[in-house]
């Protein structure tokens, strides 16, 4: 008797077999036994637990989402205060870290401490980058004046270069790669006119969208912060 292949048993388990296979499984002891073994294993993984989220979870997600939706953009004044203060602090931290590296004054600071400073600086930088990318993603050509975005991009560009260099020196190729992608966007905005044409804006938005930059920034920011805090 010809027995069923493993793949046919799998499809039978998921109810994707025709009646002939099902009939065969019922009648053939070997295939029935093989099917039972498969079923036991697959049934056993069905209980894979997922952390509970309560009824209020949807509202929490909504609250997290609203700042990122186009109609709920925060006012520019708040952003300026929010962006620039931490940016100076981050620059100081990066300069400190880069200085330590270049001057080889390693006696006073441990490798772990340097890694921690770098990771937290990357995380802060990505947080500000995320705000600018979100702004650009949601902007439309009617929003004629991009001078604030241009200034922010220039600030971020300087910081970005320092961090990319530092990440490369530290052997962190993945973070350096992301910072490189960011740099290309920042360069476009920083060197562009204060009034972007619809076409220019669309190109920038396509670059952000097609490379999934915002998502990568969010993931990397979270990772860097968590790792930095653990050190």
């Amino acid at each position, binding site marked *: 008797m010809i027995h069923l292949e493993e793949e046919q048993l799998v*499809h039978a388990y998921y109810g*994707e077999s025709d009646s002939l296979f099902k009939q065969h499984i019922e009648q053939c002891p070997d295939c029935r036994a093989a099917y039972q*073994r498969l079923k036991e294993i697959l049934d056993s993984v069905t209980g*894979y637990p*997922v*952390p509970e989220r309560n009824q209020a979870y949807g509202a929490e997600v*909504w609250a997290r989402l609203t700042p990122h939706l186009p109609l709920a953009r925060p006012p520019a004044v708040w952003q300026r205060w929010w962006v620039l203060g931490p940016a100076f602090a981050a620059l100081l931290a990066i300069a400190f870290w880069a200085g330590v590296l270049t001057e080889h004054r390693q006696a006073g600071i441990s490798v772990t401490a340097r890694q921690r400073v770098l990771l937290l600086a990357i995380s802060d930088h990505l947080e500000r980058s995320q705000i600018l990318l979100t702004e650009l993603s949601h902007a439309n050509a009617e929003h004629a004046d991009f001078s604030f975005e241009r200034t922010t991009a220039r600030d971020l560009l300087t910081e970005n270069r320092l961090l990319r260099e530092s990440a490369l020196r530290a052997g962190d190729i*993945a973070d350096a790669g992301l910072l490189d992608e960011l740099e290309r966007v920042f360069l476009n905005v920083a060197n562009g006119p204060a009034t972007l044409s619809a076409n220019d804006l669309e190109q920038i938005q396509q670059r952000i969208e097609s490379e999934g930059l*915002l998502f990568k920034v969010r993931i990397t920011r979270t990772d860097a912060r968590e790792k930095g805090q653990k050190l």
Partner: protein
Amino acid sequence: MEWTDAQAAKQASKGNQQAFRVLVERHSRAVFRLAFRMTGNEQDAEDVVQETFLRVFKQLHTFDQRAAFGTWLYRISANCALDLLRARKARNEQQTPRGDEAALHWLDHVAARDPSPERVTRSRQIAGMLEPALNRLSEVERTAFVLRHYEGFDIAQIAEALGVGAGAAKHSVFRAVQKLRRALQPAWEVGAG
């Protein structure tokens, strides 16, 4: 009157944020479950949930009102999770997403249903083996398996979600099951022995 998904999606695509809010609040938990099963990590799942709804908001105008909103949403969510898994792989930082705590939680869950010593031993084995086994699947295999096994997607829906043909989707489910089976088989051998 409570909006159906299709009505809310139609309103949201016209810029009605309250309609979009209805969709977010209605589907967040399900998206989280899918995201968690795909990523195996709570924080990653939260990121996927947020990214999913941002993408949904941007793409609402492309949603075909005749289609099932849930299927469309899960497809986007699965893609977000895939992107995240690929980004993780690229960063070469495959962490162990679920620790002993999660494994023990599962053990309690399974053991409570069937406390026979043999089952408890097997459950302990499986709890420790499943997540590493899932992590060894390719991103596409893991997505295909989660969508098939936990979300009940049929092959056509999985193929659509993955952007591949039905044959490739079917094979991905099979490959995933085959790998999991081989990884988990020792738990049965221990139980039998």
